């Protein structure tokens, strides 16, 4: 553990993550639950904690309530104390100009008073959207050793995905010489992870240059590359954006592999035990004598009377006798009643599945959701927060059941593949 007194951390947590569909209807992407006990932002926050940085500003914009509740005083990540702190930085009206955040750089520009109140050697800018483990102190050391103005955390990604990223072409010493933002025809496989180290004074100067430059990847980085020292810090290891339903599901399933690349506990990731889930109030998971569980992650407070295979369960999920859950992600306090069958579903918090209902019926996984064909196309069915599925309902593949749908939303007890309720 290093005491990184000299790096201020700004965490961008305003992302909508709209491709996560109803999972982000009531919360920002960083607040989406992940791996049973955690929220996505816990990974970034814990990396910061484990790297010894002590001052964090969290820039929020979209539906920040559950995020704010989750961060609390920052105590779970050791951000309380005389020389430590975490502050939420929402958009605000000012004396002259006030506006929503127009981009990543604009968000920081609007919070220069916070930055000025925390003089430091470097400013580390992170996104709260990603699942990874990284020694950020090593990144800062690298930045210092290269005497860089900017260092960007970058990793090699498959050719097929590179078009979603900012990409950099480096020379032999690791300096970035060319930048392409979301290239259609990529010339490199080195992608930006949205992790930037800036020298403190350099960033202030750069932000002051032109207020029309509101985004790091689109505006500031390309300009800096042409004239300043911008280096790529190569990252190797598990890193996922989980910005789509498919990627989110896959990353959860990665937890269940033998010798998994991802292990929140070994990575030192901390959840907030005292936030509204009240993990601290949960008793151990209970397994009755008729239960059967294989290749799954089960959180405290669950009661398992049925069968669970290849699934991730958050605290307080009740799986009734004779029911089967397979290849699914079930969030806090869902209740699956007797004899229900769940196959390939993501269920938000406090969903109730009535007796004998079937979620994920049939094998037509290739009929995409009719409303959001680019969100759901692999067979995953989404069930929104606190929805109640009446007993005996049969729901197909790639369906969306919106949050708070109750009995009266269901006119038919068969929901076709790709339908939205």
């Amino acid at each position, binding site marked *: 553990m290093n005491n990184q007194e000299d790096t201020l951390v700004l965490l961008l947590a305003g992302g909508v993550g709209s491709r996560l569909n109803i999972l982000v209807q009531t919360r920002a992407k960083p607040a989406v639950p992940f791996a049973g006990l955690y929220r996505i932002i816990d990974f970034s926050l814990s990396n910061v904690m484990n790297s010894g940085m002590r001052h964090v500003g969290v820039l929020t914009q979209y539906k920040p309530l559950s995020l704010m509740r989750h961060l609390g005083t920052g105590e779970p990540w050791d951000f309380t104390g005389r020389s430590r702190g975490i502050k939420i930085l929402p958009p605000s009206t000012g004396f002259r100009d006030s506006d929503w955040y127009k981009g990543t750089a604009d968000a920081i520009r609007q919070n220069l008073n916070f930055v000025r109140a925390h003089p430091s050697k470097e400013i580390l800018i992170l996104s709260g959207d990603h699942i990874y483990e990284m020694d950020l102190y090593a990144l800062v050391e690298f930045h210092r050793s290269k005497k860089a103005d900017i260092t960007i955390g970058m990793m090699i990604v498959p050719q097929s995905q590179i078009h979603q990223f900012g990409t950099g072409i480096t020379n032999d010493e690791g300096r970035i010489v060319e930048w392409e933002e979301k290239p259609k025809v990529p010339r490199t496989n080195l992608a930006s992870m949205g992790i930037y180290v800036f020298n403190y004074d350099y960033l202030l100067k750069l932000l002051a240059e032109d207020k029309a430059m509101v985004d790091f990847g689109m505006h500031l980085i390309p300009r800096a590359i042409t004239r300043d020292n911008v280096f790529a810090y190569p990252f190797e290891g598990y890193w996922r954006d989980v910005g789509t339903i498919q990627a989110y599901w896959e990353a959860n399933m990665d937890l269940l592999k033998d010798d998994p690349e991802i292990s929140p506990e070994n990575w*030192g990731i901390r959840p907030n035990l005292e936030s509204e889930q009240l993990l601290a*109030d949960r008793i*151990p998971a*209970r*397994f009755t004598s008729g239960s059967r*569980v294989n290749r*799954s992650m089960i959180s405290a407070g669950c009661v398992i009377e049925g069968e669970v295979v290849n699934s991730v369960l958050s605290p307080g999920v009740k799986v009734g006798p004779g029911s089967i859950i397979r290849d699914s992600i079930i969030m806090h306090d869902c209740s699956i009643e007797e004899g229900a069958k769940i196959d390939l579903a993501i269920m938000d918090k406090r969903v109730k599945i009535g007796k004998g209902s079937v979620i994920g019926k049939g094998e037509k996984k290739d009929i995409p959701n009719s409303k959001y064909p680019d969100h759901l196309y692999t067979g995953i069915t989404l069930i929104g927060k606190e929805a109640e599925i009446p007993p005996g309902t049969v729901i197909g593949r790639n369906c969306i059941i919106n949050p708070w749908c109750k009995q009266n939303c269901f006119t038919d007890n068969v929901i076709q593949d790709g339908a939205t309720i």
Partner: protein
Amino acid sequence: MKLKPRTLAMILAGGRVDDLTVLTFHRPKSAVPFGGFARVIDFPLSNLMNSGLDRVAILSQYRSYSLINHIGIGAAWEMIGRYRGISVLPPYIGYGNSQWYRGSSDAVYQNLDFVQYINPEQLLILSGDHIYRMDYREIINYHREKDADLTMACIKVPMREAHRFGLADIDEEDGDLGGRVLRYREKPENPEFNWASLTVFCFKPTVLYKILEANIKEDASYEFGRDIIPRMMNENLRVYGYKFRGYWGYTRTIEEYWQTNMDLLGPDPKIKFADWNIRTNMEHRGIGDCQPLKIGDNARISDSLIYNGCIIEGEVEHSILFPGTHVEKGARVKDSVLFFKNVVGKEAKLDKVISDVNTTFGRGVRIGTEGKPGPKEASVIGWNNFIKADTIIGSKCIVYPALASEKIPKQVESGEVVR
């Protein structure tokens, strides 16, 4: 001054209890783990929290570190604030006569300055040793209603076991709720009545102060059950019994401790654990750092409680597993209680074992007398042990904590103690 607490709760958490052997070598009984994630003292502490009583003192003497560490700043039970708090009161050296706590009532007597500073309207004295759920507001209300000098919570026990307890003869003054205590006997050989004291006492402080002073001056023993209550009965003070009818788990012997744990299991468990709202300190032993419980392909789990941070690849039946315990492939754990961070190696078979923290059972280790006729009693393994592969240990054995692994023989007969 409205916020000033009217009740001060004091928890007697000093004792070690010889019969729990290796489980209390390094911690007081109140810090013994229970229920898959908690400690025994979490039960009175959570009861206090759920009863809205948040000015608490803990009288500790024996090996306090584990307990003090567990209490932390009291935040786990919401006991921090202007008038809320947990004070740990260890014995101290004073000006003049300083000594260890010589008994439960002496522990309170030696801290009378603390009690008088808080100046509560009633003093609730609890044992830190029992597994139960109680809303203390009910006994306090009864105590105030009766204008009693002492109200003690009692539970009806079978007459044949009654000799182990302090017993009250309660009249029918308030029927099912309680009544005046007509007679009190501490652990009598031939019990005539069977309302056993739970060591939940509600005192009128001014009366208690006088009794404690007299006890210190005139007696040679300083226990609530043996000395204070009989003295109050003799002086014909207003002693009432509050009749408790819930679950009460006694954990004074290994067998009782094991049974009370097992009362959490079964199709209709005696302890409705989820409803009890028991809180523990999630920072103690890093429970808060655990990921969800991970279950492998060939695992089989039935009738068990298992907490976050465990990895189950083998078989677990009718058992309770604390965080960080790993049951490897082919291993089987039955009728057992495994504390934090145990490793049960491949093909190892544990049958009715209580194992303290950080113990590793090597490949093919067998403990218990599974399949053999005759009574089976729990074997207890002390903490930080490494049991070598293929070791065979019978039932009712005790293995001392942190032994060099060559000190543990390859075969330990039932009833043996390895030290």
